């Protein structure tokens, strides 16, 4: 139920439900972007049950991947 998959917005949203084509490593699905009005082509979104629920923040993703290094640096310094 919590299954949410990241995909790339590859088409412009259309219609009341703002349906747009999303690519998941080459698999194309139409999903609704109605809950992510700020999403644009090229953004990555989390898709759940046919709807995008969040736009992935690329900077935060990098921070998460580097978090342990930062935390250990802080620990060593402090």
């Amino acid at each position, binding site marked *: 139920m919590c*299954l949410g*998959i990241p995909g790339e917005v590859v088409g412009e949203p259309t219609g009341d439900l703002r349906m747009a084509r999303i*690519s*998941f*490593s*080459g*698999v*194309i*699905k139409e999903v609704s972007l109605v809950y992510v009005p700020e999403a644009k082509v090229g953004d990555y979104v989390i898709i759940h049950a046919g709807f995008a629920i969040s736009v992935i923040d690329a900077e935060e993703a990098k921070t998460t991947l580097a978090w342990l290094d930062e935390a250990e640096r802080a620990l060593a310094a402090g």
Partner: protein
Amino acid sequence: MIEPLTCGVPHVPNHVELAHGGGGRKMRHLLESVILPAFDNRLTEAKHDSVVLPIGNERIAYTTDGYVISPMFFPGGDIGKLAIFGTVNDLAAAGAIPKWLSVSFILEEGLPLSELERVVRSMKDAACVARVDIVTGDTKVVDRGKGDGLYVTTSGLGMVPAGVDVRPARVRAGDAVLVTGDIGRHGVAVLSVRKGLAFESPVESDCAPLADMVQALVGGGIDVHCARDATRGGLAAVLLEIASTARVEITVEEDAIPVDPSVAAACELLGLDVLHVANEGRMAVFVSESDASTALDILRGLAVSRNAALIGRVAPDGRAGAVSLRTRFGPERAIDLPAGEPLPRIC
């Protein structure tokens, strides 16, 4: 008033369910409890895809199959091509050179003749590629609504060369486990039609004849202990069947199993375990450890098995019938047969 029977009513069926055809636990149960006891004999005990029969000084491999795939036409193939290559592959799994096939059609009233022609042409082409002859057959027609287009059943005969003995009982502790290519394509290709999944580059079924591949190994001096194609139930099902019949434990490395990124993504999206997804042109092959490297070289030299990989080992002193997967982080987890029918009518 609703009376509870026992806890949440265990669902014990007294009728056939779609899951019984799924290649998973329910199908096994149906075979073991209803079908095999009726036909049990020394020969069916071998539990291999084909049976090998001695006739004079020769050995003949004999198999039969049914094809009910829906939809009939899918990316990379159709029910006809599937029927020919599937039968050929069952013979190949016994180490046989496939020779003669029979084909029987059950046609539904109303099936467009153009579709039948397309299927038949495809079977002719496939038979040509596989170098087999379709030598006998039958055709029946059932009323509209009773047959879903077209069903095909086949039988096949092949000759097993002298000195070739390929069957699960020959699997030994320490054997290398190879897979002849990336997995999950057939199931995903068929599902893509059923579920309206689109792809940037279409995923096509891996439907292909594998007898030449097996004979290439034999011809290259490899003593193939066991080879079996991973159809319904996927790679998991074929490894579990062999582990059970051979009474060995198999361990595979998750990261060593080749999976195309689009296939992996489709499985994530559909909530499928790629290990349970059907293939139609892939075999699990068991050879002794010392033969593994040469076997891989031979396989990778052929187009149909260019992505072959060493994925695991038959454990020494293992638990009979168990298959374990070592995840990339180290811990092992058990592989099981799927319960129900993740992909009904996939073959």
